[in-house]
């Protein structure tokens, strides 16, 4: 009944292209929405569990209904988390920001310069250099971690900030994105005009190229940020000093220790929650940059 009313209304609003608003489409819409709702539950439920569990004390964590709140222990969990082991959780957050944040900024700058050079300068072996870098995209970071450790231990660089930071600022995929984007978005005439005006090559890059490439830069930054933040093997092999850990490695260590120290379960839960909140917000609000960058990347493949 309601369906046929909708169909008539649809027919009346003819200029909308969905004109043949047949009952079939409406039923399809309900089914599609219902299916997506079920999927949304699948994707959100673990996050919901994390949120709920971070408010519970160590005892109610095991005994109460997992998907609903019980006695509120949020404040004591928070103070416990930030004071445990001399407030080392703070260190981990700062370290993560250094590795992933600063690392991704540096990686973006290096990759944009390299991509720009590969797109806009003719030189011998250009294609070869690009092919080698492209091959680097297919060599995953984890395959490099072990040999890097063996290498850096020869020069006593393991167990330092640099051992995690320096390998993280190399982003072949960023170079690829930068080259694709610079080749299509920066007109050669603009560079020529800059040269005629007497600007140095560096100034042209800084004032003209970087400005035009800025949407691609955000995408490159995001990709590298996630790559560093997700690279677990590299800090795991490089670092033994817990004060140098990124937050992922720190939580992993606690997660392996709660057999001996039961209160750590609560800290792992709330520590996980705190560490992902800023990231999830940043991600969701920057979603359109993912899409634009991914289109640029896949169109060329």
């Amino acid at each position, binding site marked *: 009944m309601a369906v046929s009313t909708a169909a008539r209304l649809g027919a009346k609003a003819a200029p909308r*292209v*969905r004109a043949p608003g047949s009952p079939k*489409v409406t039923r*399809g*819409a309900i089914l*599609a*929405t219902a299916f*997506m709702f079920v*999927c*949304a539950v*699948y*994707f959100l439920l*673990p*996050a919901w*569990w994390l949120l709920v569990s971070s408010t519970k004390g160590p005892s109610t964590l*095991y005994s109460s209904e*997992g998907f609903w709140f019980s006695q509120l222990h949020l404040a004591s969990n928070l103070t416990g988390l930030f004071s445990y082991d001399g407030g080392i959780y703070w260190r981990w957050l700062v370290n993560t920001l250094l590795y992933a944040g600063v690392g991704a900024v540096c990686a973006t700058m*290096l*990759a944009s*310069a*390299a991509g720009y*050079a590969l797109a806009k*300068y003719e030189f011998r072996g250009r294609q070869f*250099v690009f092919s*080698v870098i492209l*091959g680097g995209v*297919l*060599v*995953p970071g984890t*395959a*490099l971690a*072990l*040999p890097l*450790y*063996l*290498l850096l231990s020869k020069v006593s660089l393991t167990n330092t900030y640099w051992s995690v930071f*320096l390998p993280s600022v*190399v982003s072949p995929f960023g*170079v690829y994105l930068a080259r694709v984007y610079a080749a299509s978005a920066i007109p050669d005439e603009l560079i020529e005009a800059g040269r005629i005006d007497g600007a140095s090559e560096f100034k042209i890059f800084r004032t003209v190229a970087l400005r035009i490439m800025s949407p691609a830069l955000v995408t490159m930054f995001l990709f590298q940020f996630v790559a560093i*933040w*997700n690279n*677990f*093997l590299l800090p*795991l092999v490089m670092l033994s000093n817990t004060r140098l850990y990124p937050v992922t490695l720190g*939580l992993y260590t606690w*997660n392996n220790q709660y057999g001996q120290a039961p209160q750590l379960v609560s800290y*792992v*839960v709330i520590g*996980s929650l705190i560490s*992902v909140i800023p990231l*999830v917000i940043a*991600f*969701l609000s920057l*979603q359109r940059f*993912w*899409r634009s960058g*991914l*289109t640029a990347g*896949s169109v060329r*493949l």
Partner: protein
Amino acid sequence: MFLGPFGVLFALFFLLPIGYAIYESFFKVHVSGLGLGPSSTTTVFAGLANYTHVFSDPSFRQGVGRVLLFGVVQIPVMLLFATILALLLDSVAARFKRFFRLAFFLPYGIPGVIAAILWSFLYLPGLSPVVAALHGAGFGTVNFLGVNSVLWSIANIVTWEYTGYNMLIIYAGLQAIPADLYEAARLDGASEWRVATRIKLPLVAGSLVLTAVFSIIGTLQLFAEPQVLRSVADDISSSYTPNLLAYTEAFTNNNPNYAAAVAVVLAIGTFILSFGFLRLVQRHGARMGV
């Protein structure tokens, strides 16, 4: 030169370690006498001995078999799932698009280690509301961490993490298609299903290839999720995946030369598989005129 700084670091932290791993993989530590004292071990040239060992090592073979099985099942399931969600989001019929897009993408904001820790709680009997709910629904005590089930529990974590990301890549491809292209088909009376399979899917083939290549690389490198789950699942051995084997050999068994050989074989294998897949798709695509 603009290429310089990147080039130097790329050489130092990409090319050099690869070269060094290859170099190391040709040596092995020889223990003389009783193996006591610092001078009793010497590093000697071993030729291809480490490589023949890799290929005959049962734990390496089992690990490779495991990640291949994992990939053959998990990658198609995840990509099909992602494609369906992208098509639904793109179809005119769907409601609440913004909410759904955010919900599906959210897990990607959670790093692999933390996602694995989170799911390990949801698999753990006594703590997990999922196990409790299934028990309450009459399924008995479901063991997510058993010898046969744990691989698929890992697959579930990976699917949960990356479906939304892959969906976004495919969705981006769909959004780039000019709408009038299928408006015409729709006016001709083509159903949504026909529009999706005959017009939309062929046009996002490039995006699908991209997601498949990334997934193949990720699967062969599987490390963080099984490593984290080891704390709750006894059946994940220290050589569960090739990457775990290399890690164990280097740090537990103190055999970096052998670990280097494993890493080299794994890197070459990854390269061949992802590159081969690209080639296969490109040839196939050229024939179909995509």
